[in-house]
Every structure is written in structure tokens, then in C-alpha cells.
């Protein structure tokens, strides 16, 4: 199976206090970046679908990782290559010149040439939390989509049985390939992904895999190509316009209550939630 995964670097949420916000923009210079966690889960899912867990060194399929970003974002792609992806594409762009719709349109064009059987994405990126690209992309491609995947079982690599996390339970959806799937947190649980290559009872370690130094070194030699955004779409106009930015209000200090009855009293009279 050929899988294309889109991934993005995001400002490290642990350093949120360093972010400077002006009414015009969010200042990103000087911030530390890390891969969007949901995108890392998508890469891990792609790797699990294209390997026999007994020999993770051999890729039984092809995994291509794509990012939209400046040159510095290439380290995010190299990191994905180090964990096992085969090749990488960087679409040269900066965040302020992108929105979910433009990314989806450009990806759709890229997919015409790359011809993957499956496109995997994180359900959302943790900066804007827009949660749009997978849905828009499926629409532009005219492919079936399954969002918020918490489990995926490959059925002969021609269809996927996707467990979608929805309010109150799991919805099982069968999508025929090619398809677009966005993944949720639980996709990296030990038994969430069942490929056609791995024994059904195999349990992976929880979470995404690590890359050893040798793999980091080897990733330097893997193919990483750069594509111009304008080569993918002539229309680079944005549908989302940001009209202003402001930091969230500082949280007020809490109070300590002495007893349960005082708590109940405050919930009634001050918080007015009872």
C-alpha cells in the first residue's frame, strides 16, 4: 500500500508562555517547534500499516510524508524519515499564507501525481485546532473519508475498517481505497492498527516509535524534494481571514474553601452553577 501522510510542525505548547501576541499577529520567531502530535500518530499509523511488526526495518509499501512550511520545517520531515518513512516532500510556504482550504487544494493536486492508496492526516493541528483539511481534501478528491480514527483494520489493503470515535461510542466505517483518513489519539494504542502483514495478536508499545541514531543518520540520505506552492495551484487566495489577535485573559487566583458546605454555598451564590 502507498500511503501519503501530511504533517506539520507546531509551536511547542510547553513554551506557550513565550508566545508574543500583538493585535496584528502571533509572533513565532524564537519559538521552539515540534511535530504536531496528531500528525506523528498519522505517521505511526502509516508505518504500522506498511510493515510486519516482526521486522520493522523492512517497509512493505511506501510512506511519503508531506509538509507545508519554510526550509526549517525540513527537520520535521527528516524526523519522520528517521522513524521509517521512505520519502518526503516540502511544499514551500509560510503559515500566514496558508489556510486549511489552500492546503487541501494543494494536497489534492499533489496526490494526482503521487497516487497514494491512502492519505493519512492528524485530525487537527494543535495551534489553530481547525480540523478541516482531511474533510476538505476528501471532498476535493471525491474520495471516501473517515475522520477521528481510533482504530484501523486493513482488509486486504483494498478497504479499511475504521473505528471512529464519536460521542457516546465508536462508529465502525468501511472505506474502500483510495480514501482519506484522519486519526485521533487512540490510534497509537498497542492494538489499534491491524495491517495485512502483522500477526493479528501483535501488541505495539504504546505511542509513536523512536528513531535510533543510525536511523537518524540514514534519514539524511532519503529523498526530500521541494515543491513550489504555485506549481500546485494557481489560486493561492485564502478563504480564512484573521481579523485580530489577543492573548487569553489571565486566570484569576482561586480561593481555598474550608468545608464542603462552604463549597456548595459558593457554587450556588458565586459560581451560580447549582
Amino acid at each position: 500500500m502507498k500511503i501519503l501522510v501530511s504533517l506539520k510542525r507546531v509551536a511547542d505548547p510547553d513554551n506557550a508562555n513565550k508566545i508574543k501576541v500583538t493585535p496584528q499577529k502571533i509572533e513565532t520567531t524564537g519559538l521552539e517547534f515540534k511535530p504536531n502530535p496528531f500528525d506523528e500518530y498519522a505517521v505511526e499509523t502509516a508505518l504500522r500499516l506498511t510493515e510486519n511488526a516482526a521486522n520493522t526495518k523492512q517497509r512493505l509499501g511506501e510512506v511519503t510524508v508531506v509538509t507545508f512550511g519554510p526550509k526549517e520545517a525540513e527537520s520535521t520531515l527528516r524526523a519522520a524519515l528517521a522513524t521509517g518513512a521512505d520519502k518526503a516532500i516540502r511544499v514551500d510556504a509560510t503559515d500566514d499564507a496558508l489556510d486549511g482550504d489552500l492546503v487541501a487544494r494543494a494536497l489534492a493536486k499533489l496526490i494526482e501525481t503521487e497516487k497514494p492508496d491512502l492519505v493519512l492526516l492528524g485530525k487537527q493541528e494543535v495551534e489553530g485546532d481547525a480540523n478541516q483539511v482531511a474533510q476538505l481534501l476528501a471532498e476535493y478528491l471525491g474520495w471516501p473519508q473517515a475522520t477521528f480514527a481510533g482504530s484501523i483494520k486493513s482488509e486486504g489493503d483494498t478497504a479499511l475498517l475504521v473505528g471512529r470515535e464519536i460521542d457516546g461510542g465508536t462508529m465502525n466505517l468501511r472505506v474502500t481505497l483510495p480514501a482519506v483518513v484522519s486519526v485521533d489519539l487512540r490510534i497509537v494504542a498497542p492494538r489499534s492498527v491491524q495491517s495485512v502483514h502483522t500477526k493479528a495478536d501483535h501488541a505495539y508499545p504504546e505511542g509513536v516509535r523512536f528513531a535510533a541514531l543510525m536511523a537518524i543518520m540514514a534519514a539524511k540520505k532519503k529523498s526530500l524534494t521541494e515543491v513550489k506552492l504555485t506549481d500546485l495551484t494557481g489560486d493561492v487566495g485564502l478563504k480564512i481571514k484573521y481579523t485580530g489577535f489577543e492573548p487569553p485573559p489571565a486566570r484569576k487566583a482561586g480561593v481555598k474553601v474550608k468545608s464542603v458546605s462552604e463549597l456548595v454555598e459558593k457554587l450556588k451564590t458565586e459560581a451560580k452553577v447549582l
Partner: protein
Amino acid sequence: MATYLFETAEHAALRAQARAFATRSVRPHARAWEEAGEFPRALYAQIAASGLLGLGYREAIGGSGGDVTHVLAASEELVLEGHSVGTVVGLGSHGIALPPIVALGTGEQIERFVRPVLRGEKIAALAVTEPGGGSDVASLRTRAVRDGDDYVVDGAKTFITSGVRADVVTVAVRTGGPGHGGVSMLVIERGTPGFSVSKRLEKMGWWASDTAELTFEECRVPAANLLGDEGSGFVAIMANFVTERVYLAGQCVAIAELAYRESVQYARDRHAFGKPLSGFQVTRHKLADMATRIAAARALTGEVASRLVAADARPELAAMAKNTATDACSWVVDQAVQIHGGYGYMRDFVVERLFRDARLYPIGGGTREIMNEVISKTEGY
């Protein structure tokens, strides 16, 4: 983010891996393991699977490749993100136990002792120090007497990191006459009759790392476990010291860096007299001095590491780096506690632990005074 001058994109990628490992597998348990005086044995296999345990060892012997620079970068990140120095040094005890085996051992010895440790299946420790003395290595008293195909070992070792659980112990023994020429290295395995852990030692810091006193009583060890020739032990120990001291200096840099970051954050958050602590010039200058001393320690440690990689091992520079880094670290953690005020004295705060952890470094791996002896000898006075 502070890094060593030698760092490349690979080091950055490796740091990201180490950080991810620490976030997931160390940080959530740091306090509990430190208080329990132990981390789970299963962690060895986990860190081996991540590729971090085998850093600094060739692939051909089961390692992950890389050199001392990679070890420094990765272990700093484990400390910064993991918040448990004890866990990091416990996991890292192979870093002093295996190099003599790699340097002097036969292919068969490497198969038996090195590979299982790098797979995370066995725990390794180095046992040089004895109850009667540590600094004066050439006077060690644990005897190994050849008897047929065995050595019969009698003596005791103390302060042995990971000694309580170690499966493979690289032991410095006396096979010959007095002085350094009579010292050899012998690998003694857990379960060998006559080898026992006589005490689990309680200590000031490094709580998550167990430390043991080991006893050998008529302990029969196959002569096949001797590393290299009889009498080659002292040189191996001294060669090992250079790398060990760079590692220890690196740990000091990491501990100081963490204490510094915690202090910067605390100085921003904590208010007194109507402004944050960082609003006082005294506090800002204290932080600036901390950052400066760390930068100096990092620079010298990095230089020694770079020279080591370029096959230019300098025992005296390693000694200088260790002293510079331990001094910086001891001072920085003290200031960190001070900036935290009463909270700095409380176990809930990581700087309290770092303060205790830091005290080991002017002692372990050769004391501050012994470092100056090394420097004096090289300088020729």
C-alpha cells in the same frame, strides 16, 4: 535552547528522541522512583528499544552508533525532561562498566557481557572502589588468585552504582603484586557462588539509582572472564576515567541547566513586594551569573568531548572540565534553592532534589582533589 558547540542536526534529532522518551517514560514517575529509591527494571528494555541505551557503542557489538558527543546530548535531554537524575545515572551505569570489556575483551566476552546489556536484558556495573579506599586505585586490595581454570576472588567493593541489581560486574582485582602493575579486570556475574550484595546503601542524592556494597568470599570466577592480560587493569581504568569524567561533567551541565530553567520560571511567577522576583536586579544578576557559569562549563566539557572524538584524549583537560562543571553545578543548584526560598527546601520542588544530587559530583569518578592531582602531574609540578 542551550546546546554544545559540536552539535549538528543529528544531535538535535537525537535530543528530540530523548526528550520524547523522557516525557513518556520517566517524567510521570520521576518523583515516585526517587522516593522509592529504585526505577523498574523494565525501563532498561524500553530505553534499549528506543536506541538511546546503545549510544556510544558500535553497531557491530550491539550498539546504536554515535560517540561521546551523542551521549552528552541525549543524556542531557533525559535529565532536562525526565527530572530524575537518579534514573538517568542508574540507566547509564553501563557507560563505565562496559568500556573496559569493549576495549580489552574478546569477541566471545563481548557476546556474553556487552550485547545482553545493550539489549536492556542485563544490568552492568563497574566495581573499583573499596571500603578501604577509592582515590588510591593502585592500592586496591580485592584479591584474585589463579587456581586451575578459575580465579578465586576475596574482598569487598563499595559505592557501586547499580550494584544491587547488576548481572554483570566489571571488577578491578589484584592478581599480581602491589601497585598498579598488579591490577586486573575480571567480569563477575550475578549468581556466582561467593558473590553477594552485602548492603544497599542509603545516600544523600541519586535516590532512584541503587548503590551497593559487594562482597566476594572464595568466589570462583572462570579465568575466561579475565579482560585482556593480567596486569592490564590499571591502564583500562585510567582510560575509562577520561570518558567517565566527561559524562559526569555533562551531567553537571544538565543538572545546572535544569536548576537554572526552573529558577527562571520561578522568578517570573513568584511575586514579592508587588513585583515578580525577576523584577529585582539582584535576582536577574543571580540568574545571569548562573547562565554564565553553565555556559563556561558547557564550553570546556564540549571541548574535551570534541577532542576525545578526534582521538585526542586529554586526561588533564577532562579533569579540568569535571572540576569546572562540578563547581558550576554546585553553585547553581545552591542559588536555585535560594531563589525558590522555602519551597526550594521542599521535596515537592525539583531543585531540592537537584541540590542533593549535585553533591556527588565533586566526589564520584575521582574527587575534586584527585582531579587537581591529575592536572598537577600533567603540568609538571
